[in-house]
């Protein structure tokens, strides 16, 4: 009950809460506080969740503030300084310089922008689409279920990378096609997740009660069932942020993603492989950046799973 009222707070508006301080039951307010406090307490005592959240926040801040905090913002573009090429990591260049003398740290921070943008756009499309389809398939059943779930099975059979290869032959490879192709495949995972939960909830009493009372389908789907999917969805989305970034990096590593001179992490790794093993930092540094972002989202997702006590549903 407590979480429910917390969640509906912004939607219901602050007015009813602000107006009657007298009529509010004395124990109601502390109870709410303690529920929020409890969540925060459990979260803050979970070291992996805190580390994960810290990594994610730092990465996002660094990406947003990139022009202000990077030492050589001009190195993002096609700058060439051959005197400074292949400098090893030092105080001036924490991650060294690349084959045309650009500061790798600067480019890595800007590369994070692209990676995070990719993750947000792909999941921004895939999560709502997958959720809607999963809700529909799980709740309505019948042919809706058959069509949607068979579609997800087919989409699951297409290797994302290989589909992108096909798309990239028709269009020229760039960041947008990467986003489109990943989003076109990623919704299946969310559809499967929401479908599984909805199937379980459909026959539960609070849903049946709402049906008996004549609640609209819209109300049942979005007010009764969806709120129960939120925690599982949050965990899955956090984990997926990491995996989208990993997949996107693999794609651009193959030359199918963002094109140079855009500072994409996967592209930078690929560019650096020509100079291995002597100038290893050109590949390893951006690769490690991908690892750190993915690690952050993974730890955060695991922490959220512990926090919400979400069971793994495949």
């Amino acid at each position, binding site marked *: 009950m407590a979480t429910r009222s917390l969640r509906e707070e912004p939607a219901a508006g602050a007015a009813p809460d602000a107006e009657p301080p007298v009529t509010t039951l004395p124990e109601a307010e502390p109870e709410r506080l303690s529920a929020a406090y409890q969540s925060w307490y459990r979260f803050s005592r979970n070291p992996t969740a805190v580390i994960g959240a810290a990594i994610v926040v730092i990465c996002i801040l660094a990406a947003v503030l990139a022009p202000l905090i990077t030492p050589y913002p001009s190195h993002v573009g096609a700058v060439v300084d051959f005197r400074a090429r292949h400098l090893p990591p030092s105080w001036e260049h924490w991650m060294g310089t690349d084959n045309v003398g650009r500061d790798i740290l600067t480019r890595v921070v800007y590369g994070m922008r692209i990676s995070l943008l990719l993750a947000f756009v792909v999941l921004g499309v895939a999560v709502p689409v997958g959720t809607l389809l999963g809700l529909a398939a799980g709740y309505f059943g019948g042919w809706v279920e058959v069509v949607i779930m*068979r*579609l997800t*099975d*087919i989409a*699951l*059979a*297409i*290797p*994302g*990378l*290989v*589909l992108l*290869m*096909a*798309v*990239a*032959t*028709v*269009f020229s*490879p760039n960041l947008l096609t990467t986003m489109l192709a990943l989003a076109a495949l990623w919704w299946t995972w969310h559809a499967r997740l929401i479908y599984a939960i909805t199937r379980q909830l459909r026959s539960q009493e609070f849903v049946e009660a709402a049906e008996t009372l004549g609640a609209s389908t819209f109300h049942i789907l979005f007010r009764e069932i969806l709120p129960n999917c939120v925690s599982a969805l949050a965990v899955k989305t956090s984990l997926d942020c*990491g995996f989208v970034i*990993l*997949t996107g*990096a*693999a794609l651009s*590593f*193959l*030359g*199918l993603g963002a094109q140079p001179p855009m500072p994409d992490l*996967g592209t930078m*790794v*690929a560019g650096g*492989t020509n100079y*291995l*093993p002597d100038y*290893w930092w050109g*590949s*390893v540094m951006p*690769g*490690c950046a*991908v*690892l750190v972002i*993915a*690690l952050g989202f*993974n*730890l955060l997702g*695991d922490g959220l799973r512990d926090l919400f006590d979400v069971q*793994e549903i*495949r």
Partner: protein
Amino acid sequence: MEYLVFLVRRLLWSLLVLFGLSVVIFVIARGMPGDPARMALGPTASADQVAQLRETMGLDLPLVTQYVRYLGGLAQGDLGRSLLTGRSVSADISDTFAATFELVLATILIAFVVGLPLGVMAAQWKDRWPDNSIRLFALLSAVTPTFLLALLLQILAGYVLHVLPTTGRLPIGAGFSADITGLVTVDALLKGNWAILGEGLRHLILPAFALAAASVGQVALTTRASMIDVTSQDYVEAARAFGVPERVRVLKYMLRPALVAPMTILGLSFASLIGNAFVVELIFAWPGMASYGVRTILQKDLNAVMGVVMVSGAFFVMVNLAIDVATGLIDPRVRLGGRS
């Protein structure tokens, strides 16, 4: 009998997925804006040349007719002609597929041979140091980009320690042709050529482990979770009460019901494994489908790319069919339809 019904059902389902896949690929290739013939020939070609190519490619026919033709070709294993090599795409792919297959097979083998014992150990020593280190490993293997791991392995084992070869399937000029199964290691074994078998394995180790790391972690974690789940079941307690030794309880009573989950997971994530296989192939210059695929993309060779996509999808379907067959054998609940 039930098993046969189960197999036929899974087989029909696989065919349906393949059919759906062919539609998706066709739509992407033909339904998108742009003229495949113009793309193939480039902007400098004359209108006549383009029209001629359109005709030979059958692009002037209605879309449905084109699709029926495409599907008919697929059924006979005909993927069309590659504009890049001038040969039939199926011949090109069958030349390169064996190498990819060998790499993926080795990866699946490693995932289970290493991942299962790790998962069992983690479950047995839950929350103690073996469990914690295995979970840490699984986490790191899940978040490490495959290309980073492949590069690090290549640098470390190849360039720093000089213990393993960093590129190819065999040393240059080894003069061995894998003409029985197409798999170097298996053919060397069949022919009793131990030197080549050793070389083949040495070349296989780095790419296979780079590709397998994530799957090893995944298999270990899933096995751990389902083993822990099974531990609290009454039937394990009953076996204990009747004096079945612990070794038998863990390896028979618990492991077998726990096997289905990691196999299913591996099947589901096989699509991303194929994607990563392409990355690994490029880094280790492994002569598989990846280099062919990437080359044909750059040349806008649509038939070849469609072929690679179709074969990859079919590979996924086949592996999942094999996993269905195996899980059906292992767990009667799967084949008797107790759960899907």
